[in-house]
């Protein structure tokens, strides 16, 4: 296992970062919590975790000065990037949680609330659900065609170009994007850091497929 990583986990005031750091540490990779945008310059990988509201997330990324450096390191330089949960949703063009908010627009699409009239479809979508794996390389190497991961969210990413970007799908009232891959950009709606052994495997696959 290559241990020469310096995984930056972005601290933008949105949720539980420590679990992500603990998860990478558990599988043998060096990760650190990045509190200053300049920290990304010497990182090998960039992880954008986060739970919370879309608008707050973008506001915090913006006011703490992360936007330009993310654009530079991830889009221009092509540094491996992983968004988790809200960190995936922020890649969208626009979010609709508590009003309309602009996202990073790295992957065109809209973040919308899970709507369902069926009483058994409760929102938030909390718990373990099946992911139908569409791409068996990348994040899902050696994981077969279906696995169970932990989700906790009320909004989903409706991706504009449904074709080749989506690597996994999940159902809860509607079918929605469980994970995405676009060049050096990887993202999951579920929480790999909370999905026990299969989750740790996804994080390991992210690093392995980008070294």
């Amino acid at each position, binding site marked *: 296992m290559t241990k020469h990583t310096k995984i930056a986990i972005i601290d933008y005031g949105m949720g539980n970062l420590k679990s992500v750091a603990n998860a990478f540490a558990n599988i043998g990779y060096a990760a650190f919590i990045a509190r200053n945008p300049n920290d990304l310059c010497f990182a090998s990988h960039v992880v954008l975790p986060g739970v919370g509201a879309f608008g707050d997330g973008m506001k915090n990324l913006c006011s703490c000065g992360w936007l330009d450096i993310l654009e530079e390191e991830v889009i221009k330089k092509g540094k491996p990037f992983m968004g988790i949960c809200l960190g995936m949703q922020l890649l969208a063009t626009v979010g609709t949680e508590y009003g309309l908010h602009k996202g990073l627009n790295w992957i065109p699409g809209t973040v919308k609330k899970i709507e369902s009239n069926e009483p058994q479809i409760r929102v938030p979508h909390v*718990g373990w659900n099946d992911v139908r794996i569409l791409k068996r390389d990348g994040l899902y190497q050696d994981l077969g065609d279906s696995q169970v991961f932990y989700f906790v969210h009320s909004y989903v990413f409706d991706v504009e170009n449904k074709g080749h970007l989506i690597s996994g799908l999940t159902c809860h009232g509607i079918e929605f994007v469980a994970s995405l891959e676009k060049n050096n950009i990887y993202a999951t709606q579920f929480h790999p850091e909370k999905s026990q052994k299969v989750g740790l495997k996804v994080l390991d696959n992210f690093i392995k497929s980008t070294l």
Partner: protein
Amino acid sequence: MLKKRLIPVLLLKNGLLVRSEAFEIHQIIGNPIHEAKRFNEWNVDELIYLDISKSYEYDLRRDDHKIKGLSDHLAILDEVSKTCFMPLTWGGKIRTISQMQEIISRGADKIVINTVAVEHPQLITQAANVLGSQAVVVSIDVFRQTDGKMLVFINGGSQPTDLKPERWAKEAEERGAGEILLNSINRDGTGTGYDLELINAVSFNTKIPIIACGGVGKYEHYIEGIEAGASAVAAANIWHFKELSDRGSKRVLAKAGIGVRL
């Protein structure tokens, strides 16, 4: 399909794990960190820690427990989050938004509020705005009167309110709660099964997930809880006194046709 969750609830009192009966009797059963490691190895769905201490005195430093000194209950959370790669929910004595943020930043995914939510319901909304609804669990302790009426109690089940559980759950949902942890004081520690009427009334009146708790004495009780409308079934005592509780109960649930994570 979304799986039904099976959740061990770990009750902490003065830094030690306890079992509980009727919210009054608390018998010490072990060390919280060792138990967390055990549950992680079992691959359980989720863990809920509830700190039910009456004081801020913790005695993890006692020599006979042979673990490093932990000065406060959040140090337990630090240790647990290092070994547990599953969702962690933490509750007990939370009064402020900054305490919630502190708990989340130490590795918890959700916080549980109970008494403070009744006393200051606007805090539910504030918490949901800051942490997101999905991180805010409102816990409701219900005591059934001798005439069968169900009332919400606060302060560790010691103080009655005039709230009806289904109405209060609905209000908590409207104010931004992401889940309800529903506990029956009467059934606590009895092993006679969940209060199914209570689960039914609360789940019928809400759209958010309900975690049922209180009364599980055998695995079949989980099936009843889910059939009554719970999205997740929780228990405390049975996890400590039955070997292989996770696998055994999941097998029983799966056999009954309930989708669980095996």
